[in-house]
């Protein structure tokens, strides 16, 4: 019994292990616990963003505003705690709500105005980022530029259990929950249906609009969670926090096998994709590859990962053809 998921994640996991082995062999520091711990710390938030991004991409859409939402949520909690003096356990839920609202705005614009998700999320990316600067506590009260968040509840968000960072734990929980949603609930089934053939889904009575909004809500929520983790780590929220993260998230998702045309992919691949990206950069860093060459090398390795995936797909397609032939030859005997 051959499963499609198996092939994809097998290929990706295999590729990932090869990369890890190569770097471990070349750099003694790479294979230390400390380094893996850093990797997990440094890229778990990208993994969370990538998992969130999976949902809009499954619909054949995209969410370019995740970085901006991240900045917005971070700045919101920063302001709430340092300007208004609210405690962490109040600021945290409000931050999550802000992320959901931002996702809702994306979803509503796409569904009601029937606009292309690329354009909508590009616009909200700019608007949310502008909002971040506008509400920036550090701009309104320059003294806050040197003040750190000290709320213990908030700071506890980004800690570790020995060498295992909380961020990884959050990531694993989120990945498992979203995996469950995608494969075991009606919402997940509807998501795949809308992504695979929106018209068919609509004709079959699926509430397409609700499904779309749900996808962007999830993406926004994941951005919020990533924001909490990062601002807790930094004890502040820079205005530019999150700029460029959306590209890493999308890259991780695509490497993880989420098809940009919609309808196929899962949330476990993006996790691997995020760590693959992180591993490559960290590895190059430790090997002393000059910083100017790093993006080039990373690009080549990533093309390799995606290219390999395509190659496997093509091979599977040919095998399928052969199987169909066999099947039809056998059916011929029944007078087909």
């Amino acid at each position, binding site marked *: 019994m051959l499963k499609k*998921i198996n092939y994809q994640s097998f290929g990706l996991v295999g590729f990932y292990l090869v990369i890890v082995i190569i770097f471990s062999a070349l750099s003694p*520091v790479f294979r230390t*616990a400390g380094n893996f*711990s850093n990797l997990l710390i*440094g890229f778990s938030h990208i993994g969370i963003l990538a998992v969130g991004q999976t949902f809009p991409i499954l619909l054949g859409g995209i969410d370019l505003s995740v970085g901006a939402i991240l900045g917005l949520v971070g700045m919101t909690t920063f302001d709430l705690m340092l300007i208004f003096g609210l405690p962490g356990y109040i600021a945290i839920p409000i931050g999550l709500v802000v992320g959901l609202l931002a996702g809702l705005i994306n979803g509503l614009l796409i569904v009601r105005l029937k606009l292309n998700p690329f354009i909508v999320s590009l616009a909200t990316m700019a608007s949310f980022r502008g909002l971040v600067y506008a509400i920036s506590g550090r701009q309104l009260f*320059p003294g806050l530029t040197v003040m750190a968040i000290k709320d213990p509840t908030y700071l506890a968000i980004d800690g570790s259990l020995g060498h295992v960072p909380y961020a990884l734990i959050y990531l694993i929980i989120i990945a498992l929950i979203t995996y*469950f949603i995608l494969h075991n609930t009606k919402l997940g089934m509807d998501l795949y249906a809308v992504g695979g053939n929106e018209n068919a889904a609509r004709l079959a009575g699926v509430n397409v609009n609700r499904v779309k909004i749900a996808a962007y809500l999830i993406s926004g929520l994941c951005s919020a969670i990533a924001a909490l983790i*990062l601002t807790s780590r930094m004890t502040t929220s820079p205005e530019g926090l999150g700029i460029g993260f959306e590209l890493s998230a999308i890259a991780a998702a695509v490497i993880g096998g989420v098809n940009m045309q919609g309808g196929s992919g899962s949330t476990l691949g993006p996790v691997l994709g995020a760590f693959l990206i992180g591993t490559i950069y960290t590895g190059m860093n430790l090997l002393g590859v000059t910083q100017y060459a790093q993006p080039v090398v990373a690009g080549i390795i990533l093309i390799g990962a995606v290219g390999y995936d395509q190659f496997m797909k093509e091979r599977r397609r040919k095998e399928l053809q052969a199987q169909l032939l066999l099947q039809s030859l056998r059916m011929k005997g029944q007078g087909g």
Partner: protein
Amino acid sequence: MDEKVKRESAGFNRREFLKISALGVGAAALAACAPATPADVAPAEGGAQSSKQAKDSYKMTFVQVQPHTVSVAWGQGIEEVSNVQTNIEYKQVDGQGDPATQINLMDTAISEGVDIIFCQPADSVALGPSIKKARAAGIPVITLNIDAPEAHAAHVEMNHYFGAIDIAKAMGELMGGKGNVVILNAPPGIIIRDMRTNGFVDGMKKHHPDIKIIADQSAEWDRKKAQDVLSTILASGKEVNGVYGVNDSMALGAVDVAKTKDLIGKMVIFGNDGEKAALESIEADELSGTQYTDVWQQGRLAAALAIGLATGGISATSFTNQGHILMPYVIATKDNVGSIQAFQRW
């Protein structure tokens, strides 16, 4: 009878679940089991050790914000000095303008067990926890230009505040003591922005109270952005007699605009940093002046300090607050720019 053609199951796959849980647990287990740090340097947790043994070679890493004339020049200064020492490995890494990336780079450097970290924080507060971590691991951190609130080895900076006062003084003189000034500023949230701006404002107040600052807008340290911002302000019809670019790139952007609108000579433009391009512009009678700091020298001084600390075996845990080194500077204008030698122009 039906042929078992390839199946696709969108259903819950126990195997898949286990595989990924295993990966997650495996990663954690690997992290927990493998040896913690390289053998030579014993980590100074909580100040247990205040000195280290001498070593054969030392590693230094510079975590910059992103490649820029200033940080590249620092790197060159550092390398100049460290190359002459025996057995110093120096590496410069790119923070991509993002504090989160810088934190990750700091973490990596700490795991590598480097002996010195130079850091140009992209955000003062955000890098604080990382610096604290470095200190706990016994690694001295030297910050360049942008300080951070956690105690560390030293902070080597251009003289932002007082230099800005002197810029205001010189600029006001060239403006004849009156007129309108526009400030092309850095994005908010960076401490040197405030220092360079406050110095300028205080300086104007003290020396040339009749000069009015009519605009203070962010041009994001960037020459092109500065062109756009200034053009917009000029288009609004206000009279502008002076422009202060909080760094040279922005000031040069203002010069570009002045050239196209034929305002050279009518507008006094000052920058800050003292790059080669700015000095040449002063000599060409376009830029009116800048605060010149020998950035190579800044790098060399930082390196010297670092090498002393590293080879002297001083652990970071012994620092109670950071040392502070201010760089000497010169307000360079047409009169004195010639005295800045070629080997000083970075």
